[in-house]
């Protein structure tokens, strides 16, 4: 019983780490993969208007989008040459961390009618 409780506790902790994402780890990953080279140093001023602003975007949407790029040209995926290459090496934890970092940044995106 005690072992089961410990296992449950560990499972809960690791689940919440993935779901929550680590902002500092995410920042390091965006530097490692040079995300800013296209999306802008502040992630709110992309170098080309065909790229999205990411700063402040919803975390769960960013996880969805990055995961979709990873799926590629498959169900529920996104087929994009640049992003497909960028996300290839990312684990679910990496994606969650990157999303947490980008979400934490101040941005100019809004939800209006």
């Amino acid at each position, binding site marked *: 019983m005690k072992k089961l409780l410990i296992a449950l506790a560990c499972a809960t902790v690791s689940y919440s780490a993935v779901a929550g994402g680590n902002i500092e780890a995410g920042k390091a990953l965006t530097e490692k993969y040079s995300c800013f080279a296209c999306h802008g140093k502040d992630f709110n001023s992309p170098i080309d208007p065909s790229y*999205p602003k990411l700063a402040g975007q*919803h975390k769960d949407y960013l996880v969805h989008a990055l995961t979709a790029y990873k799926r590629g040209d498959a169900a529920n995926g*996104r*087929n994009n040459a640049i992003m497909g290459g960028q996300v290839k090496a990312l684990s679910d934890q990496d994606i969650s961390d990157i999303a947490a970092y980008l979400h934490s940044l101040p941005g100019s995106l809004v939800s209006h009618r």
Partner: protein
Amino acid sequence: MGNAQNAKAKIEMCIGCHGIPGYKASFPESFQVPMIGGQSAKFIEGALKAYQKGDRKHPSMKGIAASLSDQDIADVAAYYSQQTASAK
């Protein structure tokens, strides 16, 4: 060239999700729909065309994008690109 004024009659399909802060898509994955106000017109156009073409695979967005003409897409993109925190 997109015309934000002309978009007003065309955004009815958008506002039911993107106009409600915190609104969650529930199929096939659950997540808060993205904030699109303030993205550049060129990015929004590109995303809608990717849904149309099937490069972005999302059932609801594919259906909506498929119903839009190039001019509709340009107008809607212009409309959302002009949104800021203070101006709607």
